[in-house]
């Protein structure tokens, strides 16, 4: 289980942690379909992950603006980079098909991004919110 929710991924803000759990579940389903070479299953799972990521990012960004989070721009740029890279991965996938190499590449990219983003910028944002006793707003 590559994308299992682990306690060390928690940023300590319930609403965001729940959304991260869902993001990881969708990533896990996609990677499994890729590894099984399930052509029919992959397409909706790609869309489901991208849609959820987009709405989750919007939620975080709205919240950042509402509370005037000083790291807003850098964090938002991290979200944009993810969506850009995601488009690039989908493009490659369409070009090459669900080969084992492609499955490994997407798996590695997703796992790395989740680890770095959740463990970095999201953790910082969580700490900032908790220090001010701010509560979820989206």
């Amino acid at each position, binding site marked *: 289980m590559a994308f299992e929710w682990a306690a060390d991924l928690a940023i300590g803000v319930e609403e965001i942690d729940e959304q991260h759990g869902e993001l990881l579940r969708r990533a896990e389903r996609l990677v499994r379909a890729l590894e099984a070479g399930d052509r029919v299953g992959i397409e909706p799972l790609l869309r489901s992950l991208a849609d959820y990521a987009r709405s989750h990012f919007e939620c975080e960004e709205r919240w*950042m*603006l509402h509370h*005037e*989070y*000083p790291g*807003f*721009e*850098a964090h938002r740029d991290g979200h944009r980079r993810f969506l850009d890279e995601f488009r690039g991965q989908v493009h490659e996938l369409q070009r090459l098909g669900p080969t084992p190499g492609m499955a490994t590449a997407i798996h590695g990219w997703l796992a790395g991004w989740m680890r770095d983003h959740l463990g970095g910028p999201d953790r910082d944002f969580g700490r900032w919110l908790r220090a001010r006793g701010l509560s979820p707003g989206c």
Partner: protein
Amino acid sequence: MAIKWTQALAVGHPTIDGQHQELFRRLDKLLEAMMKGDRDEIGRLFDFLASYVVEHFGTEEKLMRDAGYAGYEMHKLAHERFVKDYLAFRKSYEDAGGGAALTIKLQNWVGDWLKAHIAGTDQVLAKALVKRAG
């Protein structure tokens, strides 16, 4: 009942701090006029503050642009939201014609917003500007 600038709100940038103090003085006068129900004075202060807020935000935004400040976008959006809320507040005063409830609402909203904005967002900006100048 008052909105007072205190040293605790100083961000350490003379231009910004000076404008904040003027902003607090005029807002305090507006609250006082609202308590008295002095409609002419209220109208004058609403007008003055509308243009002074735009001028002050403009000053900060120019400082940010000149410094190539990374937090420009979020800060500007916060200003825009304040202006929108201010205009909405003024409209509700004009529609409802004042009263104690509205005065308290203004004091709470503007007091909370200014303190949070100055202690957070403006403080971060001023630090970056001072660091850059030094």
